[in-house]
Each structure stands twice: as structure tokens, then as C-alpha cells.
């Protein structure tokens, strides 16, 4: 019973790893608890998005990840 959290871009540096397995289910409060203070601080910012099962959540605070779901933490992008 686990959820995979992916740390994208600079969040991987803050987390010190690219992904982490945590116990399912996982809601917003649980996510904030397990990612460590530095990533949690970023997550509170509007410019950081959260995707669950490959879809960006319109309201990240409504996160409800279940067993085998992937939760991706998406900091501001820069392409081109």
C-alpha cells in the first residue's frame, strides 16, 4: 500500500532524491508532512503544481492519492 512521490526539477535538489515511496492513502496534510520543510514551503506557493495519476490537480489541497498512485510535484517550468 504505497504512493510514489516524484520531485521534479529543482524540487529534487531540495528533497535530496528524485522520488520517494510513502504509505497510502496520501492527502494534502500527509504530503506536507512527509516531504520535509523545504519542499513543504515550496508546495504552499501557488506557482508549484501537483499532479496525481498524470493529471494536474485544479486544487492541489484536494489531493487524495491511493495505493499505487503517482504524485508529481511540479515547480515553475522553463523550456525552450
Amino acid at each position, binding site marked *: 500500500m504505497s504512493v510514489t512521490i516524484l520531485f521534479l526539477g529543482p524540487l529534487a535538489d531540495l528533497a535530496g532524491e528524485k522520488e520517494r515511496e510513502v504509505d497510502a492513502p496520501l492527502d494534502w496534510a500527509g504530503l506536507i508532512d512527509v516531504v520535509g520543510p523545504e519542499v513543504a514551503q515550496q508546495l504552499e506557493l501557488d506557482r508549484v503544481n501537483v*499532479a496525481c495519476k498524470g493529471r494536474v490537480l485544479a486544487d492541489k489541497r484536494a489531493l487524495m492519492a491511493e495505493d499505487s498512485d503517482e504524485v508529481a510535484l511540479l515547480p515553475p*517550468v522553463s523550456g525552450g
Partner: protein
Amino acid sequence: MARLSISSPLDVRLLDKGMSIGEALAAFNAAHDNAGGVVSFLGKVRPDGNVRALELTHYEPLTLSGMEELAETATSRFSLEGALVWHRIGVMTPGEAIVLVATAARHRRDAFEAADYLMDHLKSAAWLWKRERRDDGWHWIEPRGQDHEDLARWQ
């Protein structure tokens, strides 16, 4: 040599190796013989400062589908005959191509604007993260204020 085949009207790709620009544009041109004009933009790793390399990462479930959606929006907004949107991922060195955008339309203005629109969105609204390796290590690149202003022009 097998000729590069382009899917029409939209050809959207994430590439983990270098792209052959001339071949891509020739194939795109051939795929759109009804267009009155083709515009292309090639973005490259700038060989300035002490940038040794650039790395682009993506998120598989979102990045390509987001780029496809962007190409569809541009096609309807600017009445395109077709669009090519290719973006590199992985590690690149100065002088290498990062992004190639080409647009085909009946009239040039639509083709120019659509290429501009696609680039502004790829810079700061596509699911890609960029970092540079300088002499003192890797640095993540945040979108510049100018990038956000460029994007806001289309809203």
C-alpha cells in the same frame, strides 16, 4: 537514406537526441504544399558566459500531451495548415538545437504569429525544467519576467 516522414497536420515530438533541422524543414514543407507560407524558429543553446551544458527534464505523463494540446490550440487560433513542434530533452552543449517550431498557413501573418505563440508557450507554459552547468556546478533556470510578459500578450 530513408526520408524523414512528418505526420500531418501536427507533428509534435520530444527528442532525446539531436535533430536534423534541414531534413525536418524539407519534410514539413513537402507535407504542406497547400500552404502559402512556412515560418520556422530554431532555438539553440547560447554559447555565452561559462555555460558548459544545458539539461532539460520532462514529466512523461504531461509534457508531450501538453505540447500536442498547445499545437492544436495554435492551429485553430491561427488557421494553420500544419505545425511542427519538436523539443529536445536531456543534455545539450552550446550551439546545439533545443527547439524547432515550424508553422504552415495560407497567409504569412498567421504563420509568423503562430510560431511566436508556440515559442512563448514552450518557454514558460510547457512541462519542462531547464538547468545549466557552469564552472561551479548545475543551476536551475527560472522563467524570466520577460517570459511571463511574452506569454501574457496572448491572453
